[in-house]
């Protein structure tokens, strides 16, 4: 049994609690993850760390002993893995299916360890655990060597920018602490890591079960010259300390405005350090000011101003000038601010059951900014088992790829390699609200990279290509009250959610402005449709998908509009509702007035309606809801 006394200064606790607490208050904190293949012993290693640092209480230990006998895999011995396999469902299956966080402390540091699962289908959980880690412990079973899972996890750890990796060659006791076996595994991994341009890991031969090279150097591996695991974890550099070297930047989370005399900007420093008097720039606006104070709460009012704040701290800053600054903006060093851009290349880990839809508008969150973003079809997907680049039209659950994306307005960013806080983002499905992807920005795409920009004439095709869609006129025709506007509205919402640029022309926005000089005589009806047709055509020239919802009773005018645009771009949608049904609905009470004779020239009553002869789409509203009708039209659009 390894001596754990040195890791809980029990003597000091008993004799001088004041000194112990004062020392403990100065501890730093390291977050790390353990990963590796299913049976490589992750849970056992964590259980061992908890046990050796005396984080297991007597009642937990007796429950553990009982559970070990019942469902443990170590016979009568304690099964440390049972300590960490939390959820009841997991305990029954004997596997870890989600991220579990554990805590322990040594004299020097407090540790938070994320136990992440080994199965491929839970890549997203591993990414969750790895995203906040300073270090990764990659476990390998000495008998098995480097497996596909090991490579996958190493790649993910590298992708997520974890700078420190420990290759823990576990179960060394089962290979008689054989140095040759250890060297062979390390060489195998080093070869693989070099291909990834990954920082070489620190390799340590250990036994989680027996405790070798965990808290101190083991006598069983005299040939190993490096540190034991825990001493290494106690001294490795923290990510936040590294971030202090970066230029100052703080995304604004919240504007603190208790009264007219105080206006502070609250946030957590993404990088660098800041002092009162420092010149700062607000990005993206570019306005500059000077830090007036760094405010915090203290019992003594004279202590409420800090002299300095560093990366990782949550503070409230006040500025000397009254300038515009709100949530989403970044306050940064005036001479070295992050950039803003709206087109990027990024790596993406897809985390949702529903696969990525190129062209759809997702919500993109980066720092404290939330914008709408569209992803193009992946440049390539990565086979995480051998790092091969694969052609891909989309990304499914747990798939990783490189994509280009465009946001609807510029976002402040830094490349992920330079700043985890300013270069990482998530994508959210706007309908289900699920977090569907984690992304790491590589760089912004300059305009020169944008082939559309190089086109000499910005013509109809160029407008359409930039929007990534085929312009169309969806011409809804039908009786008053047939449901044209309702269906057109439902359709526009769906198209919009799918990232399409649309515009809906209907009585509300046309009759009150452009056509307010027109009445309801036949001549005026024709002129009404002509104008709408011309406006719709201009909008398709601009690349839009135009939806029009007008009775448009005459075949000739509809055909006139059809002739204005290229063949196939005019889609006539006949909202076919029998007169008696429309009249029974009479949403606006117009049929009643027409029957009473107070409303003249009413289509279907005293003015004719000419149904289309060969419409592209017919919607029977007595059978379909507006939503279903919209789906029918979307299905048609997808096909054509």
């Amino acid at each position, binding site marked *: 049994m390894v001596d754990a006394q040195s890791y809980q200064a029990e003597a000091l606790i008993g004799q001088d609690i004041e000194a112990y607490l004062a020392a403990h208050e100065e501890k730093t904190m390291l977050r790390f993850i353990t990963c590796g293949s299913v049976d490589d012993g992750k849970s056992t290693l964590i259980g061992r760390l908890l046990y050796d640092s005396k984080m297991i*209480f007597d009642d937990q230990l007796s429950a553990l002993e009982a559970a070990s006998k019942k469902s443990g895999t170590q016979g009568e011995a304690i099964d440390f893995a049972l300590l960490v396999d939390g959820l009841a469902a997991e305990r029954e299956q004997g596997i870890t299916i989600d991220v579990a966080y554990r805590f322990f402390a040594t004299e020097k540091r407090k540790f938070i360890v994320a136990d992440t699962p080994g199965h491929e289908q839970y890549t997203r959980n591993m990414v969750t655990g790895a995203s906040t880690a300073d270090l990764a412990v990659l476990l390998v079973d000495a008998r098995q060597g480097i497996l596909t899972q090991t490579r996958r996890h190493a790649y993910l750890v590298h992708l997520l920018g974890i700078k420190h990796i420990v290759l823990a060659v576990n179960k060394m006791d089962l290979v008689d602490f054989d140095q040759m076996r250890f060297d062979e595994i390390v060489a195998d991994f080093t070869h693989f890591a070099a291909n990834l341009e990954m920082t070489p890991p620190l390799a340590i031969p250990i036994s989680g079960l027996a405790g070798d090279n965990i808290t101190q150097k083991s006598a069983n591996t005299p040939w190993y010259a490096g540190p034991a695991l825990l001493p290494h974890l106690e001294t490795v550099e923290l990510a936040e300390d590294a971030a202090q070297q970066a230029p100052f930047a703080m995304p604004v989370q919240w504007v603190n405005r208790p009264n007219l005399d105080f206006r502070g900007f609250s946030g957590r420093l993404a990088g660098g350090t800041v002092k009162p008097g420092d010149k700062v720039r607000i990005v993206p606006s570019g306005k500059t000011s000077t830090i007036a104070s760094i405010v915090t709460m203290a019992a003594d009012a004279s202590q409420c101003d800090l002299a300095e704040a560093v990366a990782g701290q949550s503070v409230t800053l006040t500025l000397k000038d009254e300038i515009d600054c709100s949530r989403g903006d970044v306050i940064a060093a005036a001479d070295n601010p992050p950039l803003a851009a709206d087109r990027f290349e990024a790596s993406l880990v897809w985390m949702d059951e529903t696969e990525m839809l190129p062209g759809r508008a997702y919500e993109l969150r980066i720092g404290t900014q939330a914008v709408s973003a569209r992803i193009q079809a992946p440049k390539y997907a990565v086979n995480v088992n051998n790092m091969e680049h694969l052609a891909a039209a989309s990304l499914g659950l747990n798939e990783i790829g490189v994509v280009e994306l465009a946001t609807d307005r510029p976002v402040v960013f830094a490349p992920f390699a330079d700043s985890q806080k300013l270069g990482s983002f998530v994508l959210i499905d706007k309908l289900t609200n699920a977090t569907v992807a984690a992304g790491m920005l590589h760089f912004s795409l300059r305009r020169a990279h944008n082939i559309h920009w190089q086109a000499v004439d910005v013509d109809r095709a160029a407008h359409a290509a930039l929007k990534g869609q085929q312009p169309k006129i969806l011409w809804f025709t039908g009786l008053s009250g047939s449901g044209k506007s309702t269906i057109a509205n439902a359709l526009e919402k769906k198209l919009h959610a799918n990232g399409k640029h649309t515009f809906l022309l209907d009585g509300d926005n046309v009759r009150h402005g452009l056509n307010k000089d027109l009445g309801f005589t036949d001549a005026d009806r024709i002129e009404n449709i002509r104008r709408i047709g011309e406006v719709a055509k201009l909008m398709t020239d601009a690349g839009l998908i135009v939806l029009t919802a007008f009775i448009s009773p005459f075949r000739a005018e509809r055909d006139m509009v059809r002739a204005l645009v290229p063949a196939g771009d005019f889609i006539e949608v006949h909202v076919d509702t029998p007169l008696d049904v429309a009249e029974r609905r009479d949403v606006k009470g117009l049929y009643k007035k027409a029957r009473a004779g107070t409303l003249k020239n009413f289509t279907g009553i005293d003015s004719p309606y000419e149904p289309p002869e060969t419409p592209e789409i017919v919607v029977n509203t007595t059978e379909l809801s507006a939503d279903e009708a919209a789906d029918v039209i979307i299905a048609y659009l997808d096909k054509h």
Partner: protein
Amino acid sequence: MPSLTHLQQLEAESIEIMREVVAQAENPVMLYSVGKDSAAMLHVAKKAFFPSPPPFPLLHVDTTWKFQEMYKLREKAAKEAGMELIVYKNPEAEAQGINPFDHGPLHTDMWKTEGLKQALDKYGFDAAFGGARRDEEKSRAKERVFSFRSENHQWDPKNQRPEIWSLYNARKAKGESIRVFPMSNWTELDIWQYIRLENIEIVPLYFAAPRPTVERDGLLLMVDDERFPLNEGEEPVTRSVRFRTLGCYPLTGAVESEAASLNEVIQEMLLTTTSERQGRAIDHDASASMEKKKQQGYF
């Protein structure tokens, strides 16, 4: 610059979480149980929004069976923070006189689980801060910081949103709500150290004092008021005791102790050999009981 200490890091993270909730949620509330974890959480909230008061109310889901000293501190703490205090008592439980002596598990179900659901529905809170820590219990170790509840307040452990970096996604469908645990990564020792460092007021019951107690089912219970039904021949005995965790007084076991100061309490805690929740009757049934309770809507 030196590295941030672990307490500075934890505080900064908790502050960031609280501000995100305020920026993203429509109607947040902080669940306040008057215990030491609540006290630390409330203190962090005050720091997060200073010089403004925290921009949400405090909600205490009362069971009417808390210790008297808890009720005293409750009013005082809310007043000092400049926050509105909402006290909610499940009217059905009140009408039926549900109590821990006669009704067993129904007491927790009706007062706490049901009471909480009712209070959140009544005021339309869409995000509720709770002081739970991941080191308390196994199922909590796996819960996200932003934990979603269905319209029926249920937790689905198999379907948790990935929570990556500190990019918290608080978007939700109508009717859904979020429980937010800003203190997720704190341990019991961290909480004690923070209370010590920041000089946070806590209920005196955490410190040892002579108190009237009786021993029942292996738990040392305090006779906090005249509603405590004594068995035939049972006499309260004055013992020097303190509490490691506070809840309803008939359900909360005391430990015999002489630790009357904060340092002594921390010292005792560090040298102790049983984990914190052991004093709570609620976890004793099955070892997966907390997970079940949470799926039913327990906080």
